[in-house]
């Protein structure tokens, strides 16, 4: 009962939806029609980006209200959120994950590391940026990117 009272006292914590992000919906994502299942792939990040992705789906930012949902299998996914520089050991798993997704599929590179190896450029275990391994459709810069930026990128996919 304490929990029920807490729920009533807290009310709605989701922030009002910001205006639609600039650039509109991606051409490739048009077919998805307001629904995007998301698979996160950590290709070697420091986990900073993962924490921000988790924050994008928390009650405050609530990315789910725009039709994005995190799923457990690449087969169910339309969007791969890839974080971190791609390490040598993760290059092949990343290729296979993207290959397992049904068309139409999109790859979003989240964080400076995913875009150009960021902090880890030149590291001995780093194979390269995400774009060197799989084709990238959208990037979210920042180290780590703010949850708002991740939500905005997902909105450009779902178009809501």
């Amino acid at each position, binding site marked *: 009962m304490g*929990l*029920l009272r807490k*729920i009533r006292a*807290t*009310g*709605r*914590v*989701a922030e009002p*939806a910001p205006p639609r992000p600039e650039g509109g919906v991606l051409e490739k994502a048009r*077919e*998805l*029609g*307001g*629904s995007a*299942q998301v698979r996160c792939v950590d290709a070697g990040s420091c986990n900073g980006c993962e924490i921000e992705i988790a924050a994008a789906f928390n*009650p405050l930012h*609530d990315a*789910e*209200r*725009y*039709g994005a*949902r*995190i*799923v*457990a*299998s690449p*087969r*169910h996914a*339309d969007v791969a959120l890839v974080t971190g520089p791609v390490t040598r050991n993760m290059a092949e798993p990343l290729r296979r994950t993207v290959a*397992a*997704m*049904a*068309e*139409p599929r999109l790859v979003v590179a989240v964080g400076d590391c995913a875009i150009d190896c960021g902090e880890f450029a030149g590291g001995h275990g780093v194979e390269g940026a995400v774009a060197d391994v799989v084709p990238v459709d959208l990037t979210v810069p920042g180290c780590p990117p703010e949850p708002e930026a991740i939500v905005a990128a997902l909105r450009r996919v779902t178009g809501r």
Partner: protein
Amino acid sequence: MEAMSTSVPIGTALTAGTAGTAGTAGTAGTAGAVGYAAVAAQILVVVAGAPLLTGWMRQVRARLEGRAGAGVLQPWRDTRKLLRKESITPVGTGPAFRAAPALLVATTVVAAALVPLLSTDTPVSSHADLIVVVALIALGTFALALAGLDTGTAFGGMGASREMTIAALVEPTILLSVFALSIPAGTTNIPAIVSGAAHEPARLASPAGLLAAAALAVAVIAETGRIPVDNPSTHLELTMIHEAMTLEYAGPDLALVELGAQMRLTLLLGLLSSLFAPWAIATSGSWAALAIALVAFAAKVCVLAAVLAAAEVLWAKVRLFRVPELLAGSFLLALLAVAASYFLNGAGS
């Protein structure tokens, strides 16, 4: 000509059978037309309403968690998108994997036609035996478990084995708890049980009715893979039951699997409400009764779903090894319900 002449006796036989079992006073002619409409409406409401019901449950959860939610139409958007996507047949999978989604939906559609969700007076109601309905539901479960094994992945096999463990405990509970209601009705025909209870509500307020309701509610939660037995929105493969079997499906096949799971939830919640709250279900063949039944069905199922969604926010999933204890408890309740129903009725008559 021959097709015509053979079809007429079958049609009349079915209508006559219906009038005989349900014991209604309606004339055979109008009862036929309304009966067919009721069957069509039941199938339609389960197929079209199931994604909406899931969306409604997600919306209730989202609001309780302080989120805005994606809206009740989101599962339909997901389905529309999945139907447009490419379909994938993983290497090494066979007929069991390919047939399972269609079989899951087909068995649920047949069960939705049989179970008296809107009307107890339909052309098929004489075939709506309890054991047939439970077997249809079990067939869908079995097909999906086979598909999980067919993929040959570690999680598929694990999910299949867990699902069968739970199914082995759930199916007897569903059978027994409905048996408890079938003893006063004197038949295992579900429409007859429901129309009997609608005319004699005292049957439901008996100890047997209450015990059976509790047992069936737990069984329905387990069968549809909700918290506390399974978490439908988990991303952790090691805790999955239902999801683990469907990890390899993509595109239109996944749309069917998800639609099938949503339809089973709607069907079982509808069965629960028909058995234990049979008010406003059409027991005669009139259009007005059917329309009222449709509205009442939507209201009852929405309330049940909202209660379930709220409970899911308040509860946590129990450990997998505790699930058999929970289900054994519900089986015991069902057994007590049958015993109570048998002895109380035996003393009464």
